[in-house]
């Protein structure tokens, strides 16, 4: 049971406020923001309470989406709901940012009205909702750098726009009523998140992949779609299929609506996608990547004669050639620096508050190697401070690559759609956490 829902910008502006049960006063918003600002750092705990008020919030796209609720309500439900609400807002408004929420507040109120009644969640299915939602979305400019500034840390959603074939995937789903109506498109994204820890000796200590297949559908009414995965796709350790290199995952779960009659024999998922975005399949793989992790680092940490800390980083990308990567790289250390980078389009800066050197590499072709030399002035450098250097965390995005090797063989809409329909398959691997110890 949800008592109120409100959305705040990161600066605390009230964007949306809706009270469902009239139990708590509207000062709850202020109370919440005071609590957030009273805490050091930028990471308020998920659940905060103030007397009988319990705030549960999720943070996405730089927005706080907060629900107030009773103590005995299920956190799984509330959090899943808030996430779903944000996804719906994104579906309907095109993107999720302070600007788009501001512009579409009427739409969001309408959405909230249909989704929750008297604090009880009614429905979040976009198929049902599309009959009720009347307001049209005001879309902000399809893609701007401004929106990128709101990229979340795990920005799977937002960063996706960078590799989209066009900005098409960030438009509102309801535009069918508008002038763009004819364009029926469907996007199938295979998104994987890599979580890797590489020890100082170069040994992979941990490698996890969390993957999902996401369908984003812009078709007003979509008939059945068949998604064919690799034939040799296998689940669990025991079962191996086909003769080629196995594509293996540990565990795998499917959306309720997916029909699996052809999955066992042909690895085909049958699904009738509803409008908007949904996750059709989720899978995990731990500790057993089919290929070597994409990046390797050869660090050298020394003290030079002047008492400065020399940090020489050689980074190699082990992907097949012609794949390029967006990369950002951070090391924990101290104060002023001078730098030598191997290429002019890279940049590096020292962030004093987080004591990190951030090395940005816009493109990194596969099979190549980059190096950087940082000289850091460290007051009171001792041999012990060398221990403090590191680890190196890489955040990157590998387009057209999946770490598990999962591929989509084909994508068929079974009764062929009248008119031009476009089907897109995209692959991307993000770094959830890619840590290399020094």
């Amino acid at each position, binding site marked *: 049971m949800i008592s109120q829902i409100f959305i705040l910008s990161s600066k605390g502006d009230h964007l949306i406020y809706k009270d469902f049960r009239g139990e708590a006063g509207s000062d709850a918003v202020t109370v919440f923001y005071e609590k957030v600002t009273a805490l050091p750092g930028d990471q308020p705990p998920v*659940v905060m*309470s103030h007397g009988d008020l319990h705030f549960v919030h999720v943070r996405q796209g730089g927005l706080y989406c907060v629900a107030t609720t009773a103590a005995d309500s299920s956190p*799984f439900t509330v959090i*899943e709901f808030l996430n779903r609400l944000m996804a719906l807002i994104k579906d309907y408004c095109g993107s999720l940012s302070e600007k788009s929420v501001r512009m579409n507040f009427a739409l969001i109120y309408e959405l909230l009205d249909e989704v929750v009644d008297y604090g009880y969640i009614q429905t979040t*299915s976009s198929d049902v909702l599309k009959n*009720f939602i009347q307001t049209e979305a005001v879309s902000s400019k399809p893609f701007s750098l401004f929106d990128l500034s709101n990229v979340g840390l795990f920005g799977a959603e937002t960063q996706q726009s960078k590799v989209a074939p066009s900005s098409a995937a960030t438009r509102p789903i309801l535009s069918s009523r508008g002038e763009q109506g004819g364009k029926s498109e469907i996007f199938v994204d295979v998104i994987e998140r890599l979580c890797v820890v590489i020890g100082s000796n170069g040994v992979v200590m941990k490698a996890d992949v969390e993957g999902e297949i996401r369908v984003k559908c812009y078709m007003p009414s979509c008939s059945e779609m068949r998604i064919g995965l690799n034939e040799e796709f296998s689940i669990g350790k025991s079962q191996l299929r086909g003769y080629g290199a196995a594509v293996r995952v540990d565990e795998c779960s499917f959306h309720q609506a997916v029909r699996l009659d052809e999955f066992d024999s042909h690895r085909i998922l049958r699904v009738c996608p509803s409008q908007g975005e949904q996750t059709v399949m989720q899978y995990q793989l731990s500790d057993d990547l089919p290929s070597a992790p994409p990046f390797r680092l050869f660090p050298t940490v020394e003290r030079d004669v002047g008492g400065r800390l020399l940090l020489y980083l050689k980074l190699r990308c082990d992907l097949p050639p012609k794949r390029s990567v967006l990369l950002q790289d951070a090391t924990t250390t101290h104060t002023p620096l001078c730098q030598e980078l191997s290429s002019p389009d890279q940049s590096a800066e020292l962030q004093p508050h987080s004591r990190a050197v951030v090395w940005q590499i816009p493109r990194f072709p596969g099979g190549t190697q980059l190096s950087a030399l940082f000289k850091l002035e460290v007051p*009171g450098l001792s*041999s012990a*401070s060398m*221990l403090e250097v590191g680890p190196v965390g890489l955040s990157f995005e590998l387009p057209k690559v999946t770490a598990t090797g999962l591929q989509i063989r084909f994508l068929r809409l079974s009764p062929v759609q009248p008119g031009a329909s476009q089907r897109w398959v995209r692959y991307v691997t993000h770094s959830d956490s890619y840590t290399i110890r020094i």
Partner: protein
Amino acid sequence: MPYLGSEDMVRELRRALSNPNVQSDHLRYRNTILKVVRAMSQGVDVSGLFSEMVKACATVDVVQKKLVYVFLCSYASLNPELSLLVINTLRKDCQDPNPMVRSLALRNMTNLRLPSLVEYVEQPLTAGLRDRAACVRRVAVLGWAKLHKLQASSDIDAAVVNELYSLLRDPDPVVMVNCLRALEEILKEEGGVAINKPIAHHLLNRLKECDVWGQCEVLKILERYRPQSEDELFDILSLLDPSLLSPHPPVMAATLSLFLSLCSGLPAASLSALERVRGPLLAACGSASREMRFTALCHIQLLLRSLPGLMGAHYKRFFCGYAEPAYIKQRKMQLLVELVNDENVALVLDELKGYCTDVNTDTAQAAISAIGRIGRSYSDRCLEILTGLLGLKQEHITSAVVQTVRDLVWVCPQCSEAVCLALEGCEETVQDSQGRQALLWLLGVYGERVSSAPYVLEVFIDGLRSEVSPGVKMELLTATMRLFLCRPAETQDMLGRLLHYCIEEETDMCVRDQALFYYRLLHCGIEETRKVLQGRRSDPSLGVLIGRPAEPVNQWARSFNTLEPLKQSAAETESTSGGSPEPVTSVPRPNTDLSLSSLSPSPVDKPPNGVALCFLLLGALEKAEEEDYVCMEEHVHCPAPPRCSPQSLQAALQLVNVQTLAFTPPQTLPWRVYLYTHTRNTHRSTLILGELLYTGEERVKKQPRDDTALKGFLSILATVLHTLSSERA
């Protein structure tokens, strides 16, 4: 838009709203209304526009209607009279051929929250229950709950309640779930909606039709149902089993919660349910949403209380990600501490070591204290890491290390050598009061082994005037006193100065009183002082030594799937094993190595009130140290003390239901075994903590005896314990 103060803005908007030109152009009209609602959601008080907005309500434009309703529902309570005007429009809309308009009107009619309108609302609500369109029925059902809230005193017609019950058979699953919700609120005083066998089975059969949210609601309500027979129970369980593996965490959690409540009498079944959800929970831990990850982590912590081995093989899933927020990292570290075992300890410590230099100081300190907790079982490796960290000379790190080491030494006195070596030079880096208190405590207790201790204390005493924290001052007093006892020559002078300052000039009453106390104590003579300051000390961590025994699921099942586990702070979990306050004061501080021994799960977790705790000391040949115990000392003259291997002794003791906590290694003297047992009577439960102490001379040291001797001893022990507990009870 130019900046306007709120009053100007309201005036401007009112003018626009009442302008006939605007009213005739519905796009402009709608835009103006949009502006009003925008101002409202930004917190501007636009309640003055109420009458204008009421007029705007009568329109065919659904979007405009919705906007106006958003406004009206927010301000209706401020303008009850004007709200009456809306009712007519709303009632008319309830007759509209379009079901969407009907549901909209009905919903907002009940959302106005005006008791005066109740009489107008009842009739459309009753009609709404029988509407053709499901969306209207959904709204109408919840409408009754809202109505009930408005006038809680007046009973809702029994006919309505019956109708709601019959609507549980509605073809639309949302209507069904809403009925449950509404009945739950209306019948709150009677304990909520009645779940009898037909209803329960009906709900279970229709579970599949509901969406995620509906399923959660139904599962939650079913928790109240008690199956009448074992067969029925198992039928329900097997029906629900697939939901345990649901890819939707809310459904999985609600199902598990229901499982736990259904199986409250079948511990084995609940444990196997916990095993089943391991996969989905781990998947939730890797969810893209970090809030979801956090929730899953917190609930895994709960599960581990009953099944400590549940996640053992998956410890790597709890390694922290580089960019994860601090609250997730700290939870993961708490989990890692619980998952440590012989195989993974090296990897886990290596990982935790990496977090100690985290930029976020809270995370770094949490990592350090996590290493300290692991150090209770793997002290050497942990001490190596901790002392290594001192070399960094970072203020917050050193402070956290000193505090951790203090806590560690308390439990594992064998570490004290290494700690004493590491302490040198820390005093320059530690700045915060917590860290300095810890440092002073260490210097006081181990002063004789830290050569620089007097000089460090002297620096503290010289800087006393600028010291603000009373905690540090009190700790300084105690430390100096203790040091004085073992190194009087070096300390005498500074102790005099310290006492003088604290008695004459100090303003904090606690500090002054403590100084006076020590001063008078010194008057009583050095022996008395020694007795007070260096007597047996408490060891609150004996409870920790045993590791956490597996708790029964019922201990936490209630808080599963509520906000409770998410709120629990780290400090709380730290102290849960701290033991009860008064009995521990009598447990002597072990001076010898304590090797950990594993323990069988026995339900000894802070028994309820009325706990009698007594201490039983069994001296074999000699009387132990002279001291007055609050508790009991019992001397059992046993001809041959059992000096067998810990395992066999432990096994033997377990036969008589005595659990062992810790052993000294077999060949050391004095040889000790810590044990406890637990008896439960009808009205009172007794926990007995015992120490078996053997301080015999060398000649008595013998190899393991035969079984009969051991049995004889054990029977004595058992009878002693038995009589003791019966006396106490």
